[in-house]
């Protein structure tokens, strides 16, 4: 078995054809969500905080929230939607009657997760930029980080979805995994100032931490060697998880 990119793109285009029907209604909330976060956390809570890490609070949370948007954009797609396609819509059974192989499905779905993350995260970035919270031009470096965060959370979500046999378990993924990540990955406060260096080593396992630090570096224009570690983590974990999903998707689709 091997990946055929044209077939993987055909998988992506199936999802895109469905999304094309609903994008107008689903994109609008994507613009409101960041505005609400920025308003409540940045302007509301932020007015009680003189500064954080040398900037206004709303400026502090902006880069992390762009990565959160990418995470959320990918996550819904590769959890509930993959489960529905697998179990109810029998989409993969249909694909496997054609030259499409399980590996193509895996790659196509991951690319679609990246696409959705890019739409969410890209929309968020535009809002942030419109509010003047993205210092130009170096904040533009955060743009390629949006699909990268999408890839990471597609890989994580798919690794989970393909091992789950009931739709009820996805609420655990959201409330016990994504929500803690959202709150404790350095989006709202500098994690390294609250944790001892020992605990900070442990916190390095948190997947969202790395895209958030990368986005923060892009927005501030200050890069350290840590950027390399964050990139290595993001690419490395994505690759390992996607490879580990190959065997499982093959088993689920071709018994």
């Amino acid at each position, binding site marked *: 078995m091997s990946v*055929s990119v*044209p*077939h993987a793109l*055909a998988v992506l*285009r*199936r999802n895109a*054809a*469905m999304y094309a*029907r*609903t994008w107008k209604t689903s994109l609008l909330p994507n613009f409101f969500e960041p505005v609400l976060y920025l308003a409540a956390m940045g302007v509301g809570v932020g007015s009680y905080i003189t500064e954080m890490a040398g900037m206004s609070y709303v400026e502090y949370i902006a880069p992390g929230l762009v990565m959160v948007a990418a995470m959320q954009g990918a996550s819904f797609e590769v959890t509930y939607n993959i489960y529905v396609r697998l179990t109810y*819509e*029998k*989409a993969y*059974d*249909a*694909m*496997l*009657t*054609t*030259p*499409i*192989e399980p590996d193509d499905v895996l790659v196509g779905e991951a690319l679609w997760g990246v696409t959705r993350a890019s739409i969410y995260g890209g929309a968020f970035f535009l809002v942030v930029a419109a509010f003047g919270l993205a210092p130009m031009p170096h904040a533009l470096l955060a743009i390629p980080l949006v699909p990268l965060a999408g890839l990471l959370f597609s890989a994580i979500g798919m690794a989970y979805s393909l091992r789950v046999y009931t739709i009820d378990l996805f609420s655990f993924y959201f409330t016990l995994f994504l929500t803690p990540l959202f709150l404790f990955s350095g989006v709202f406060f500098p994690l390294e100032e609250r944790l001892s260096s020992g605990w900070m080593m442990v916190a390095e396992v948190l997947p969202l931490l790395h895209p958030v630090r990368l986005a923060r570096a892009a927005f501030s224009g200050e890069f350290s060697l840590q950027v390399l570690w964050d990139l290595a983590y993001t690419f490395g974990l994505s690759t390992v998880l996607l490879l580990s999903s190959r065997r499982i998707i093959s088993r689920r*689709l*071709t*018994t």
Partner: protein
Amino acid sequence: MHVIEAENVSKRFGNRIAVDALNLRVPKGACYGLLGPNGAGKTTTLRMTYGVTRPDIGSIKVFGLDSVKHGRAVRSRIGVTLQDTVMIEALDVYDNLKVFGRYHLLSGVELDRRARDLMERLELDSHAGMPVKTLSGGFQRRLAVALSLMSKPELLILDEPTTGLDPAVRVTLWELVRELRREGTTVLLTTHYMDEAERLCDELAIFSQGRVIAEGAPKALIREHLAREAVEFEIDADDDAALLQGLSISGRPLRIGRRTTVYLNDAAPLLARLREADPEDLGNMVVRPTNLEDVFLTLTGTRLEGGA
């Protein structure tokens, strides 16, 4: 030249043997039917044929290629209509055809042309822009077949193509299958309707519990296993020995309660005896040609539809 060749193929799921030592040869241009009740191994056989289920033992060759090792190549030349509805319900007929065509890497003008041709051919064009979920069952099944024709397949695989459809739609689909065969398409189908099998298929394999228990042309299968005529009548169990004594009966009489079916080449002597025994209602007698259902009942002791 055989389009499908299965040699000594077996597949088990856990402790259950789904397909047991299957041998199958489907000639080019034929319509070959797998007939049997639910759970007899028909769908597993289909899935192994298009390479999605891997046999534990043996291999299936399609167009001379191993269906698992060369799955991509095999599936680029076949079309499969699954039993489950696999259309995208939110999309319309035309978009569904396009999505499916892209799985075969069709694009641009060619993709559009094939989708429009099939909508016209299967009389779907009046509903081209309707979301699939608003279509009737018959329309949906026609679309399901249309999807599997997007690749212009040399081999068409149909899994229970008419289950749950009303008679008019069944006849339309049968006519489509005949038309495709005239154009040279080989057809492999599963069904548990013996009338469908008798009308459409040149050759049949009768499945029971994972094994092929009989194989051949529908008429030949009937001739081989039973006499020409079937007589059904009602009689008490104690009385039938006397009634049937001396008649040349093929197989054993089948009894369900008082209802008894007997197979003979010449029904006349039995009819005379029934008239004599009960001139009033003739034991609710029916005389008809022997069919595949009878063959199946005789071979397995169970019915095709609904099992038991």
